[in-house]
């Protein structure tokens, strides 16, 4: 591999790893904020138990996001000096505003959110949660504004040296694809968060422990999923039609469409062959793509061949990533609808197969986000600033050896990080929330954790670890 490919591999790996944590922490931050609000306004202990539980998991994901994010803010200079030189007048301020309005806000209030309960009032704690979750949202807003400018640049002109100068800030920040990409990503975070909450709660329901808290959380998560899953699909459709307008080549790669066609078919599955410039083994549904892309029977859609092969992205990568994303979206929608059907029949908390299903959906949101970003980033190639600056011209004057060294270390370090996170977060998640609220009467015999001190510690999968079960159970014994 040459220096460009190595730099791309490194950036793809580090940013792909990073995006997992903001995805989780944006969703969980708002869920914790909601719980803090409910605890403050209703005073029901179940909300406090859930809030404390989910704040701990949020803290872990937030920390992972911070440390993997610092890497990116420097990598853009170390590995992509040509890019930095060309676009810093435009993107520099957006990165700076992200730090100023988002990172500082999160950092300033995260201490109070995590450690402040008891030191500050419930209202102040809620405010701190709100500031942290707003910070997470502001961060997403700025970084997606920057990314959208790379996809659909506007408001700036390049001089003879290839350096961009901003002529209109409003246009540079609010580019054509920005609102769609932002809405799609934020909704993805909320949806992913909902299914993480649902999955963890389902585990406890399945184990018949922490019933009061887990039912509340499971119910909340399934309501959220029911709203968010169809919303996300609608937003995705809008985003796709925006891409058709602004980045037709990317859209053609997503659809596997080589020739400009009137009334194009939807290619369900195929092998897009870049050498032959056509699809092999294609399964097509006539006119369907025309219907959802142009909302007409015979709309015209541009094909990949409108540009020379050297200006096409890696078509199979974009094509399959897109199908994975859509498939996951549909699977999550189906799960949410099934949840509603069970709820209407009064079986939401009791259908054991559905609890297993909910656990299985937990990682799907993350895979969907990774697939979606692969579509949008790989689909932009060979451009780093669409139509203006090629990725190959954007790298830094660093040696392939130095990039390889750091890539190998990143790979090793991030795997250690992931394993540690899965270990510690998994342990916390399996241990579950405290049980300070009274269990519902009709199922008291089923609730293992409410059977007393010894049962609580012996059935808890994480009974080795120390502190939190004991005070919680004592508290419950007093209640």
């Amino acid at each position, binding site marked *: 591999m040459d220096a460009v490919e190595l730099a791309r591999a490194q950036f793809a790996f580090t940013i792909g790893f990073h995006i997992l944590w903001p995805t989780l922490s944006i969703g969980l931050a708002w869920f914790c904020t909601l719980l803090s609000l409910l605890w403050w306004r209703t005073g029901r202990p179940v909300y406090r138990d859930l809030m404390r539980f989910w704040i701990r998991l949020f803290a872990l994901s937030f920390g992972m996001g911070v440390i993997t994010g610092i*890497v990116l803010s*420097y990598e853009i200079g170390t590995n992509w000096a040509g890019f930095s030189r060309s676009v*810093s007048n435009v993107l*520099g301020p957006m990165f700076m505003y992200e730090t100023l309005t988002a*990172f500082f806000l999160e950092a300033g209030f995260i*201490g109070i959110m995590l450690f402040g309960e008891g030191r500050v009032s419930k209202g102040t704690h809620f405010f701190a949660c709100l500031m942290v979750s707003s910070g997470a949202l502001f961060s997403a807003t700025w970084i997606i504004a920057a990314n959208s400018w790379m996809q659909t640049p506007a408001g700036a002109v390049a001089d003879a040296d290839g350096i961009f100068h901003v002529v209109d800030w409003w246009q540079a920040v609010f580019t054509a694809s920005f609102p769609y990409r932002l809405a799609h990503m934020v909704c993805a975070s909320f949806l992913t968060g909902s299914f993480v909450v649902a999955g963890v709660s389902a585990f406890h329901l399945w184990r018949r422990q922490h019933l009061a808290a887990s039912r509340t959380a499971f119910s909340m998560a399934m309501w959220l999923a029911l709203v968010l899953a169809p919303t996300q699909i609608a937003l995705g459709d809008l985003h796709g039609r925006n891409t058709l307008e602004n980045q037709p080549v990317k859209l053609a790669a997503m659809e596997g469409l080589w020739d400009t066609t009137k009334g194009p078919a939807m290619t369900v599955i195929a092998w897009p062959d870049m050498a032959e410039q056509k699809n092999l083994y294609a399964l097509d549904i006539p006119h369907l793509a025309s219907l959802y892309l142009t909302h007409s029977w015979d709309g015209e859609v541009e094909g990949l061949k409108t540009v020379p092969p050297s200006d096409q992205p890696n078509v199979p990568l974009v094509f399959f990533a897109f199908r994975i994303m859509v498939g996951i979206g549909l699977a999550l929608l189906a799960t949410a609808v099934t949840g509603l059907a069970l709820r209407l029949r009064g079986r939401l908390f009791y259908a054991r197969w559905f609890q297993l299903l909910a656990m299985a959906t937990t990682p799907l949101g993350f895979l969907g986000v990774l697939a979606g970003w692969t579509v949008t980033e790989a689909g932009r190639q060979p451009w780093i600033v669409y139509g203006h600056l090629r990725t190959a011209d954007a790298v830094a004057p*660093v040696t392939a*050896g130095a990039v390889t060294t750091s890539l190998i270390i990143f790979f090793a370090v991030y795997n250690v990080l992931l394993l540690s996170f899965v270990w*510690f977060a998994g342990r916390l998640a399996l241990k579950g929330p405290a049980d300070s609220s009274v269990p519902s009467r009709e199922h008291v015999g089923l609730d293992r954790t409410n059977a007393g001190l010894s049962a609580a510690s012996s059935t808890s999968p994480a009974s080795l670890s120390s502190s939190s079960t004991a005070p919680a159970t004592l508290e419950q014994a007093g209640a």
Partner: protein
Amino acid sequence: MLELMQNPHVPLAFAALAAFCVSVYVLADGLDLGVGILFLAAPRDDQRDLMMASIEPVWDANETWLVMGGTLLIATFPAGYYVLLPAFYLPIMFMLFALIFRGIAFEFRLQATRFRFVWDIAFAAGSILATLCQGLILGGLIGGVPMQDGMFSGGPFSFFSLLGLMCGIGLLGGYALIGAGWLIWKTVGSTQVFAREIAHAALILTAVMMALVSLWSALTVPEVAARWFALPNLLLLAPVPLATLAVLVAIWRGIWEGAEPRTFLLSLMVFALGLVGLVVSLWPYVVPRHVTVWDGAADPQTLGFIAIGLVVILPIVLAYQAHAYWVFRGKVEPHAGGYGEAAMGSPHP
């Protein structure tokens, strides 16, 4: 706004602001890197618990100033960003790896049971490595980086210099001193005694390395020597080293006596004076001896866009960061749980 931003004094204002952000970073993260550097030197595990607890609520905000420095650099002086970052590729990458290990140690140490020592080592080694890397970058900056056709033109190891190594060791001493000062202020009992004892060693290391770095850069970098020793500069600048000496003596005399915040606050002053010295040596360059603050500044319209936010938001940021320190004021109390776990263990109404 655009006309205002074309004024030649504007890059000066942004340079001052960048220097301010770097200073805040060095002073704020200095205290928690310092606690990390001293971590394994503490004799007992409960002292380490207390040391970590003393910085838990604030380290994230402190480290955010590092991101602020990076993003402010790309926004205001892009040449500094795209020349200096590739020039210091390896030390920056290793600093980031070190900060990663240090950061996760905060999260995982108190939840770990059997392998807690692994996180102790990760936290201390991460702090030490990050500090050494910062020193190497600092020394390389004073020495200057090779540049051709507007881009960095050296190799992956051209960052390395003896001066950088000296700066690294000096920073280890300096951060350890700030960290010890912080612990004297925020802890009691045996942890405080430990901090007072180790502060002496840190102070000696800091003083010796400051002298060595000044001397060595004057000997090996002629531009720096010319800046300091030409008349009338020599007389005008003499107060800087003299004041540094006076503060160092004041710290030495106050470690066991005097008010508890004294060592901490005076050690911050040492760093502030060191930064003044650095500005004197490097002025007016963004990339030393190649790109000045006027040549390296971003477009006027970009600076104008940044200025609005900085004037409005930066004071608010400083205010609520101060508030966060205020909420967690006073002596640190050991808590039962770890990062996040505290929320479970803490008393509540």
